[in-house]
């Protein structure tokens, strides 16, 4: 029974952490190239709606993932235009972009609902349920493929950013756009790729939230999870592996909040939900800004 409880708990942690991992990567790859991706929440939300719609209309959850990627690409291009080419202030743009996404998704969802569309999408299912998750192999089979994709992408982004030449250049754009420009790098191109990849990952986070967890849509269903991912990146010192650890920690906090009542701890579950933000603030207090890529958030204009 005890073992079973842990197996259930762990699979719940992975379910809760998967969307966060995608979004955290989306923030991280952008930030490493000097763009602060505040719009992650909005990209996640449109990704979530697109995933559900595509899956409902095609009947295939993987088409949902494709749909999320398509919309993520579009969101990325819009954000690129605004934050890289014009360039506008990344923070204000991000906040406004989130508001626009909230309006657009709620609007579309409402129209569909009035049109009588049924929004229970086919879900990406785990190979087996948590019953068998008492062994490591069992746990592996008890999570959706998206979780594995997320973990794989963490490894890929770590190798890319810290073990390859292009990754080094990528990070140099985030540290000092001007120096990179002086060294002959096309800062615009790097940042364009970064923002698009970041939006794709954020939209995948939305798909993981819906298709991998609760295959339906409700207004504002991301409920600030994009910002939790942002916190995870800060907490994880802008490193993919540590950010993953932070996402797992925050996922555990969320899973514990669900179980608080069943466990009978008597502590108000809202205190668990405060946890990610409070520990991140404490981590920031301990580390300061020394680890943040230095040029993140600064618009770069060729003038």
């Amino acid at each position, binding site marked *: 029974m005890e073992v079973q409880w842990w197996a259930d708990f762990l699979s719940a942690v992975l379910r809760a952490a998967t969307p966060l991992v995608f979004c955290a990567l989306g923030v991280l790859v952008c930030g490493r190239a000097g763009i*602060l991706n*505040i719009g992650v929440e909005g990209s996640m939300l449109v990704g979530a709606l697109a995933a559900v719609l595509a899956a409902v209309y095609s009947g295939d959850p993987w088409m949902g993932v494709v749909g999320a990627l398509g919309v993520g690409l579009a969101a990325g291009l819009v954000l690129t*235009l*605004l934050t890289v080419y*014009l*360039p*506008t*202030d*990344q*923070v*204000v*743009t991000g*906040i*406004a*972009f*989130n*508001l*626009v*996404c*909230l*309006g*657009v998704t*709620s*609007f579309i969802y*409402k*129209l569909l609902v*009035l049109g009588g569309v049924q929004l229970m999408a086919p879900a990406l299912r785990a190979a087996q349920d948590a019953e068998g998750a008492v062994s490591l192999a069992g746990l592996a089979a008890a999570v959706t493929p998206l979780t594995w994709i997320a973990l794989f992408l963490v490894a890929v982004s770590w190798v890319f950013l810290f073990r390859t030449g292009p990754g080094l250049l990528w990070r140099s754009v985030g540290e000092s756009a001007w120096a990179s420009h002086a060294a002959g790098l096309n800062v615009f191109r790097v940042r364009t790729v970064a923002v698009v990849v970041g939006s794709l990952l954020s939209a995948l986070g939305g798909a993981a939230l819906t298709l991998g967890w609760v295959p339906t849509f409700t*207004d504002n269903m991301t409920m*600030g999870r994009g*910002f*939790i991912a*942002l*916190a995870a990146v*800060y907490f994880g010192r802008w490193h993919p592996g540590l950010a993953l650890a932070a996402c797992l920690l925050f996922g555990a906090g969320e899973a514990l909040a669900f179980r608080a009542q069943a466990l009978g701890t008597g502590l*108000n579950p*809202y*205190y668990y*939900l*405060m946890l*990610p*933000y*409070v520990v*991140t*603030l404490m981590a*920031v*207090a301990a*580390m*300061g*800004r*020394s680890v*943040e890529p230095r040029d993140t*958030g*600064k*618009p770069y204009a060729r003038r």
Partner: protein
Amino acid sequence: MKNTAVTVKKMLRPGWGSSATLAVASVVLSLAALCVCSFLAGASPLKVMTALFEGALRGRYALVTTLSEWVAMTLCGLAVLIPYRAGFFNVGGQGQLEVGAIAAAAVALSLTAPRPLVVLVALLAAVAAGILVVSVPLVLRLRRGASEVTTTIMMNFACVQFMYAMVTGPLKDPESWYGTTPAVPEMCRLPSFPPGTEIPVGTWVAVLITVGAAWLMSSTVFGLHLRAVGGNRPAAVAAGIPAERVFTKAVLMGAALAGLAGGLQLLGYTFRVAEGWSKSWGMVGIPIALLGGNPLGVLVVGLLFAILETGSRSMQALTGVPAALIYLFQGLPVLIYLGLRASAWYSRWARAAR
């Protein structure tokens, strides 16, 4: 993040040349987008606009609601604007507002004293709470160099969860069926002014504060220092301006206004702090500050946003166009404004205009 503040500050410089024209243009374009969306939703744009404005401006109830919304939106706009000038991007207005309201509720529900005293202490508690909330990002910025953008965002979420914990825990109304504080007693609610008109007294407070802020920023030594510190800090320091003190003052002032907004809304409008009690006033303060550009501009843009917020309900009821479309309107003008402003086309045009 310093550059964030610098660019933003540039846009918010008092009397930002022709960017007022831009602000109007982006608002008009966004309204046009709203019309297109209502058309897509199968409603006549004219009817939608009518319902929107009529729902906010026709009848006593609608007007009072609009004015009450205006109070929060104006104060939250100022809560962003004033720290901006000093180079601090206060994204944390929402958290400051929520905790301010909780503090005011705690006072109003526990203190038994004459009405003016209770109201005064409750509002002071709200202001103090706002300052307390901002002190974390402020100290992290001053002592650790941590970007206030992320820390204020973190504080927002922590504060909202704290508010939920309070209204479902220690401050919960035992009679109630959802997470809420009890309603503040009739005797410590804010009166209307002039008496008998139902105009919330908070409206006057907000207008007075806005005028005060405009005066402070344009015609006082503090305003001068503020511009200097936000514009070029090393130069300001070299000129002997106590930069850190001016910076701190501006940030605390902004947070105090957000906290005050929470207190005023509680005592004058909602009477309860509850799950979903507040609109995202604190967040909307950001677009308002950006489009408004100076305190008086904030007042005007705040009114427009308040009208849209109030009118959206009747728009949905009368035309079937979802009220959620208003979020679109809160973000879109900002994107258009920023986009236009940064575009090459605009810089050519601005140069020609000069």
